[in-house]
């Protein structure tokens, strides 16, 4: 059991927790204390120092909305947001329950009657917005990966195609996806028309924006990874006369996976940053909109609530990166590859 927890923490790279889990093991006390101090103690100290600095500095800055909130205030608002979420869910449940009761009554009177359940249209809570943002970034990222990996592989394999596409890639890469946002919005409004859309337009717009910035690092890294395959391995493939598909599947893909994943991780990181900005700019649902709404709201709590959102953005970005790292470790063959 303890072994499991240990390997788990190691796998998740939560080394901070390793000393805690090791407490279950029979290690010498000195070793435990030493490793606790070096692994958990140092980062903990840094965090405490940061919170103190933040609290100290915050109380000295006055804004139009009052003093900049310190850690305590932000923590209060976090609890407040959780509370609001729970209340909103209760309200929603009540709403559906009432509808169901009403429908049941109608059906008892007249079994033939058509009954409908109207969706609840309450204001999305902070956690709803978080979830929307996560879904959007993952959608955009996955779509981008499905486009970028094949393009990267083909570019890496064919010099002609690489020469053809490279200028385009190099020009599109530095464009801020926010510059695309108006164009994407217009095109989505014009093209994505349906009476019963599966996804909201705002969701599609945000996801495409994320896709547009996620594509480039993955394409470039995959291309480089494929183009720099060990010449000997290419010769092995030639001697065996592997066909194109087998060659890609057995030789090219595995050997370019480390580079590919480096690209994917960069992509996801950029995608997450861009998404928040896009949501603020386009007023699309998500964390960005939450921040913007609070900014416009301008109540005395707003600044603390924005800070909660900012911290959430950071933590989610960190977790997404760790998830990618885990995936990378699952598919990579090289035990020596140092992955951070």
């Amino acid at each position, binding site marked *: 059991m303890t072994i499991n927890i240990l390997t788990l923490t190691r796998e998740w790279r939560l080394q901070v927790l390793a000393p805690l889990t090791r407490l279950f093991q029979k290690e010498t006390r000195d070793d435990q204390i030493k490793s606790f101090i070096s692994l958990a103690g140092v980062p903990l100290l840094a965090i405490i120092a940061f919170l103190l600095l933040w609290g100290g500095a915050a109380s000295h800055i006055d804004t139009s909305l009052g003093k900049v909130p310190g850690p305590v205030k932000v923590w209060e608002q976090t609890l407040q947001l959780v509370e609001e979420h729970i209340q909103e869910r209760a309200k929603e449940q009540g709403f559906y329950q009432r509808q169901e009761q009403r429908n049941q009554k109608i059906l008892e009177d007249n079994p033939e009657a058509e009954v409908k359940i109207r969706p609840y249209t309450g204001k999305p809570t902070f956690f709803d917005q978080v979830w929307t943002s996560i879904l959007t970034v993952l959608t955009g990222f996955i779509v981008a990966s499905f486009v970028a990996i094949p393009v990267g592989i083909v570019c890496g394999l064919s010099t002609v195609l690489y020469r053809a596409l490279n200028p385009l890639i190099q020009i599109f890469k530095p464009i801020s996806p926010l510059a695309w946002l108006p164009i994407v919005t217009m095109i989505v409004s014009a093209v994505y028309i349906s009476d019963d859309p599966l996804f909201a337009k705002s969701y599609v717009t945000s996801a495409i924006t994320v896709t547009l910035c996620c594509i480039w690092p993955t394409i470039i890294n995959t291309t480089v990874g494929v183009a720099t395959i060990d010449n000997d391995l290419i010769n092995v493939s030639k*001697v065996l*006369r*592997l066909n194109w598909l087998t060659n890609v599947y057995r030789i090219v893909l595995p*050997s370019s996976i480390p580079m590919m994943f480096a690209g994917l991780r960069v992509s996801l990181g950029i995608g997450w940053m861009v998404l928040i900005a896009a949501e603020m700019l386009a007023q699309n649902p998500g964390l960005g909109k939450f921040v913007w709404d609070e900014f416009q709201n301008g109540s005395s709590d707003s600044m603390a609530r924005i800070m909660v959102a900012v911290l959430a953005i950071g933590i989610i970005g960190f977790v997404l990166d760790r998830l990618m790292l885990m995936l990378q470790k699952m598919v990579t*063959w090289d035990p020596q590859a140092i992955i951070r």
Partner: protein
Amino acid sequence: MQSSHLVISHVSIEFPTRNGPFKALDSVNLDIAKGEFVSLIGHSGCGKSTVLNIVAGLHQATEGGVILNGKEVNQPGPDRAVVFQNHSLLPWLTAYENVALAVKQVFKGKKNKHEMDDWIRHNLALVHMEHAMDKRPAEISGGMKQRVGIARALAMEPEVLLMDEPFGALDALTRAHMQDSLLEIQSRLCNTVIMITHDVDEAVLLSDRIVMMTNGPAATIGEILAIELPRPRDRLELAEDTRYNHYRAEVVRFLHERHGKMSSTTPQRNTSLKAHATVQSIPPRQGLPKTSGVKCDIRINVSDSAADLPRNIA
């Protein structure tokens, strides 16, 4: 004149470089009999790998060509399996899977799943690697990797086995061990082998003929030394054999002479000694299992003029 098994005929190659074309090989001629073991030896950079790559089909000769069983070679294929210098196993596959990749490719439709499995295990057993067949290249030593590389090449049942300094990266002890393994395998399977080596003892111990190449650029074959030592060969017995030591001295002398000429501006070309096999009378190998089904006692003995080959000892 008999039609030979493998003929390297007037092969020249020019590589395009920034300073214009670079002629690496000039008119290389060599006839190799079925089941013959030929070593290529020469100073580094003279073009040994280039010769091997042309036979493998990985490079195209600018002039001349390679003919295997009467057909011209112009692309790589599993009938000319290559053992690369640095093993070049796929690092994400286990030893078994590495061999399996080759077996599946070569015997697709010819062997069923069970037969393929048997064949993979058989070849791994040949190089004494059954015990580590589920290990990845990163988990085994250099010598073991090279063994798997050889197993992979042998599993293709190639007409010709091409080896580019297969044991160059190994320590002396492992190398001696691998040479013994190769001797044993060769006596059983009678593959036609072309092996590049830097090691004089290795060349004499393993080869039927040692092909010594002149220095580049425009390298060609300088001398060919037929090693008429009976097989099976044993390194301990041979160490005291006067013929063995004589052959050894011949190769060393050749390399030493060439080394002296390396500094001269014009590359020495020995036109009179280009590519003639010596008249040989090698006793047929003993102890060949009948089951191997490979006839390996065919020797093509071509000599246009024996006077061209003064140094070959009858």
